[in-house]
Structure formats: structure tokens, C-alpha cells
């Protein structure tokens, strides 16, 4: 017998199904739920209750993890609306966007080889700014315009920025050694 997991993540954490999320409310919803279901509350309970508690706490963590991260949240919301973000299969991005990615990746490579920490940090700043702009566009597309196709495309673009940031982080890690 498995617990009733039919509620979506938003409902479970007490939120409206929207991209814009009040971080404090999200955190409160998560903590309220965990304080009901966390295995620590059931360490002295029956084996069956301990298992159900673990399943629920797992579910709560999954919901929180998904809604806390804007890309994951957007993908999940699009999925609820019946849209697939095609991150595995859709390789055609606008040429200027890809050109910009190429330039950034090259700049990261150059800075990494030179061990140039301040340049890496400057690049990270640029990328974060670009990411923040895209998140504003994503909110408009999903919440105001209900333009889910545009939402999917923005999620795909954001994945490239996410990768770039990871590349910068590992380059910074290298320069530390």
C-alpha cells in the first residue's frame, strides 16, 4: 500500500500553481510538511509508520527541491500544463544565442588556462545577469502570457547558462589547486 501522492508539488507545499513563488512561503510550506512527516518524528514508531514517514519525507524533499530551483520549477509547471521542454532532443537554438555561448565558453577556457580568477568571476557575473533577465522573461511567459512554447525555449536556453556556471565553478576550483 503506497501513500496518496496525488497532490502536485504546489498543492503539497501550499502554493498557487504559478512560476512566481514567494520564497518565504515556499520554505514555510516545506517545513510545515516535514515537521509532520519526517522520519525523526517516528523513530520510536512501528516499522510500517517509519517506512511511510520515509516515503512522505522523500516526497516533501522532492517537491521542495523542484520548486526551489527556477529551472526545475518551470519545467515542472510546463509538464503540468502538458508541455515537454525537449531538453534531450531539441538542438536548434537561435544562431546568435549559440554564438554567444561559444564566445563565453571560449572566454572561460582562456581564463582557466591563464588561471585568471578575476576574469572568471567577471564572466560569472555576466552570465548571472543574463540568467536573471531570462528568468524575468520566463515569469512573464508562464504567468502573464501563458506562452508555454516560449517557456520551453527559455528553459532550454537556461540550461546552457547553468552549464556555463558549472564550467566556471570547476575552472575556479582548478585555479585553487
Amino acid at each position, binding site marked *: 500500500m503506497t501513500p496518496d501522492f496525488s497532490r502536485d508539488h504546489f498543492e503539497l507545499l501550499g502554493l498557487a500553481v504559478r512560476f512566481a513563488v514567494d520564497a518565504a512561503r515556499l520554505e514555510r510550506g516545506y517545513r510545515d510538511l516535514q515537521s509532520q512527516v519526517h522520519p525523526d518524528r517516528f523513530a520510536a514508531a512501528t516499522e510500517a509508520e517509519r517506512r511511510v514517514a*520515509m516515503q512522505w519525507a522523500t516526497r516533501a524533499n522532492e517537491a521542495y527541491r523542484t520548486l526551489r530551483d527556477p529551472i526545475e520549477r518551470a519545467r515542472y509547471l510546463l509538464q503540468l500544463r502538458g508541455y515537454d521542454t525537449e531538453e534531450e532532443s531539441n538542438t536548434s537554438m537561435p544562431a546568435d544565442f549559440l554564438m554567444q555561448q561559444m564566445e563565453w565558453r571560449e572566454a572561460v577556457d582562456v581564463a582557466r588556462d591563464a588561471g585568471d580568477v578575476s576574469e572568471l568571476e567577471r564572466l560569472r557575473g555576466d552570465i548571472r545577469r543574463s540568467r536573471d533577465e531570462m528568468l524575468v522573461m520566463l515569469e512573464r511567459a508562464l504567468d502573464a502570457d501563458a506562452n508555454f512554447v516560449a517557456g520551453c525555449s527559455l528553459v532550454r536556453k537556461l540550461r546552457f547558462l547553468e552549464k556555463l556556471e558549472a564550467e566556471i565553478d570547476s575552472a575556479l576550483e582548478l585555479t585553487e589547486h
Partner: protein
Amino acid sequence: MGLLQISEPGDSPEPHQRKLAVGIDLGTTHSLAATVRSGAAEVIADDEGRALLPSIVRYFPDGRVDVGYDARAAQAEDPANTIVSVKRFMGRGVADVAKYGALPYHFKDAPGMVSIETAAGPRSPVQVSAEILKVLRERSERALRGELFGAVVTVPAYFDDSQRQATKDAAKLAGLNVLRLLNEPTAAAIAYGLDHASEGTFAIFDLGGGTFDISILKLTRGVFEVLSTNGDSALGGDDFDQAVATHWRVGHRIADAKGGDTRRLLAAAREVKERLSFEEEAGVQVTLSYGQSLRLVLTRSEFEKITAGLVQRTLAPTRKALRDAKLEPADIDGVVLVGGATRMPHLQRAVEGHFGKPPLKDLDPDAVVALGAAIQANVLAGNRAAGDDWLLLDVIPLSLGLETMGGLVERVIPRNSTIPVARAQEFTTFKDGQSAMALHVVQGERELVADNRSLARFELRGIPPMVAGAARIQVTFQVDADGLLSVSAREATTGVESSIVVKPSYGLSDDEVARMLQESFSHAIEDRDARALAEQRVEAESLLAAIRAALDQDADLLGEDERADLDRRMAGLERAWNATDHRAIKAAIEALNRASEAFATRRMDRAVSGALAGRRLDEVASR
């Protein structure tokens, strides 16, 4: 040290109702136990008033064992049979142990985890650790005057699954009911946070005898949330001793020190290291086995030069932890120092330099982990009092993944995921008609399987014959609240299923633990049965009590037939309790557990619905 009173007098259950629970810090150089008494956590001292137990075990040919100070006193005279720093070998193979340099033991290449040849026969690190835990269990039961209900045992946050599993096995072997494995820095944060009523983002910098952890935690009212953790499970105060001993060995041309001399040098190095935290220069007189007497001296600045590299090694994990938490050093409100090795002034300076603020060190760095574990143990045992309503959210330190074709790792659960966590990944067959698939579970951050730690291999059999790529095999990783992994696999189109608890490659099966456990108590069958009967009766009592409490609250969730079934099983267990067959009690417990599953599920659904309905109307209205 004065830990905050965590309950008002009179709030806690009556003493005779309290379940005895302890927190145990199983350390590299020493271990200790603590408990909550009269609302405050305190360490449990031995008969001579000493709280710390050196984590040293000496084996004698007749099977007798010395643990603690006596063993420590004999380490130079009987190095091969006196096991120090056994924590470094937990869940580790011969190749890992080789990295620690020349050690005076005869290691045996056992599958997965090393075994040490002693005068009493081969001993696995699990068994050696169990000896330490057993001493602490007996000490606690004497001090608390009763059998322990359970214990929270701490592990370095950066321990992988093999090391955690080995620790849990050792605790079971010592006859402990493990309520939870708790990460050491998290335990320290509990003790610190509750004591200081702190709020904010804290870094717990924990350099123990053999392991280094850095955890970033967010403390808000009633919640301890670990944001990230990192570390080095092979870096600790021991390495500073080694560096000093090597320095002397070279400087005094002590060629090829024998086992006993190695120990003498290390002991001298440790003493000098500790004194240099307070003095500018320290020296000791050492007599080596061949009669040579030496005066070994070191100044603080020499010491700092010799060990500067080791201090530096703590900084890379610290940066990584901050990065994973998406924070800068300036975002940290306080840095808490834990572990005896953090007493070294140059280490404190490095920490201060990195975070730009002096670290907090008003807690006893040797005791704070055990105290935090004791507070958690008290709550988990059900001795929760008003004001104890805090919640602990921890993470796994290292990513978990599966080997895919080509020797690459497919990451399934990334590091720093909040536990418990489950994640599924789909795989397919690559040959027509392929009926079996081997799965290899690994832990670590590297792309190639060979660079990560191998946790387990298992095989999914009975995949129905299909063309290559048609089968959809869903592999689910579940990490529980102890940070331990279990894996199940399922073919989605037909539902063929296979599930295992990942047993580390070192290969201690449940049966082996049970066998060792029985052997360790007594060789007489009747004693063993008596012990098993006592254990099963205790378990039966707590199960019955838990179900009665549940029925008091939520009996309306059961249909008439279900209620009748549950009552029948409860009566069955009571009957078994009155008889003396521990196997019959065990069977009745299992039957009652099964019968209560649907009830447990519905109770939790009700609790969740209640939590949702309890939210303020305007929150729901905004949907």
C-alpha cells in the same frame, strides 16, 4: 559546559517512563558517550571520572581485549596487536589503507574491507570499533542504571555509504539499537544552536583525529537545515603527528623505525603538538627500542611550517562547500570549531583568514559532537518535551550513480541532496533478447567509474526477451534518513522487479552481523536465547504501545474487519510475549507490522491533509 535547558522541569515524562538513550561520538583518537538528564545534555564519565575513551583496542592471545587507557599505555610495547585510529579503516580496502604509510599491523586482504591479523585472530575494523562501542554501552548502562533503548552514533559528514554501513554494523555488533547515524558537524550544530539560541547561517569546521568535515547550516527557529557539506575522510590531527614524527626521523636520522618506535615517535609528536597550542617551544625525551635516548624539540613556528600544507588542505573543501551552498565567506554569520585538532593556533588563523571573522570556540571541541548526538537521541527515543519541536534536515555528502557502458558514471542522486531522497533513472537493453542486466552502484564525483568508490554490484534477471532498446528498466535509489542507500530495479513494461539494500562491497551480510553478534555475547546457547527473548519482548512491548497510541488517536480510520484483524494480531503478540519462544514473538511482531501497514499509511495521509487544511485561508485563496 552549560547547555541550554531544553525542557521545563516537569515537562518531560516521568523518569521511569523515559527511554534511556545516548549519543555516541565514535572518534578516530577517542570516543565518548553523552545523554540528556534533567533536561540538559551531559557526558557520561567512567568510574574514574574520565569522559574520553581512547579509541584504542588491544587483543591478547587468549581472546581478552583491552580498550582505552590500558590499551593506549601498551601501544609501543605491543604495536601489532594494539589497534589505534581504526576509524580510518572502516569500509576501506587494502589499497586505501596503503595510503596511510607504514603501519605496524598485519593487514589481510579481505574482500572489500581490510582485516587485521591480531593475536586473537583476524579482526575486521567493524569488530574493533564494536569493542569500543561496547565499552561505552556498558558504561552508559551502568551510569543510567538500565538497558539502553537506543543510541545515535555519529559519523563524519563526508563518510561514504561503505563507511556509514560499517559504522552501523559495528553499533549493532556492540548490541546497540541505532536510532540514527548522525553527521558529526550536524550534531555539533544542534548542541551549539540550542545552547546559544542561534539564528543564521553557520559553518561548522570539524577537524578530528582522522577526518575533516565542513558543513554549512542554516539555523532558523526550530530547524537545522544543512545546505552543503564537504570534507576529506582521510585528513585529521593524526596527519599532523605524522608530519612531526617524519620531521624528527629525518632530522635525527632514525632509520627504519620499528613498530614500537613509530608509536613512540607519534606519541611524542602528539604531546609536543598539543603543548605548542599554548607554548612557543616544546620538547620531550624519548627512549627508542635499541636504547638510544633522544631529546626531541620543536618550536611553534617550525611546527607551523611543517604542517602548513595540511592546513591548506582544509581550505579547498571549505570553498567547495560554500560554492555548493551558493554562498560567499561573508554570508556566514559564524564559524564553529569542532574537534581537538582545531585547537591549533595556525589552523584557527587560517579559518579566520578565510571567513574574515574569528571562529567561535566556546564549546568543548571534544565533547560537543556527543552532546548534540545525545540531544537528538533523546528526541528520537520519544522523550520529546515541550520546546523540543525542532527539525533536522541533513544531506548526503557524495553523489550516487550507476556504471553505464563505457565505464562512465550516470549520476542518479547528486551530492548535497536533502535526505531522505529517492530518484529513478531509466535504462534499456543494448542487445536483442537480453535477459539480464548487471548494475554497478558507485559513489563519488568523477566521470569515470574507476575514479569513484564502488558500493555494490547486483544483477537484474528475468528481463523478458525484447529487441535491443525496447526494455525500460527503472532503477530507483532510495537514501534513508541515516544516509544509507537501497536500490531497487523494475522493468517497466512487464513489472519484473528486483530490490536490494546496498550492502557495501566489503561483504558483511545481515547473517554475518547476526552471527558475530551472537558469538560476542556468549557461547552458551541458553544465554543467547535468553538475550534474544529479552530483546524480542522489548520490541514487542514498544510495538504494542505504539499501536495502542495510534488507535487512541485514529481508530476511526479502520473498518470493522480491519480493526478486528489488528486486534487479533495484537492478542497473538501478547500471547507470544507470555510464552518463551523468541522466534514466535518475532513472527508475531512481523505479522502485526504487516497488518498495521494500511493503518500507518492512512494515519500519515490524515496528518498531511491536516497540515494542508491548517494553512491560512488566504494562502489557499490565492490559488
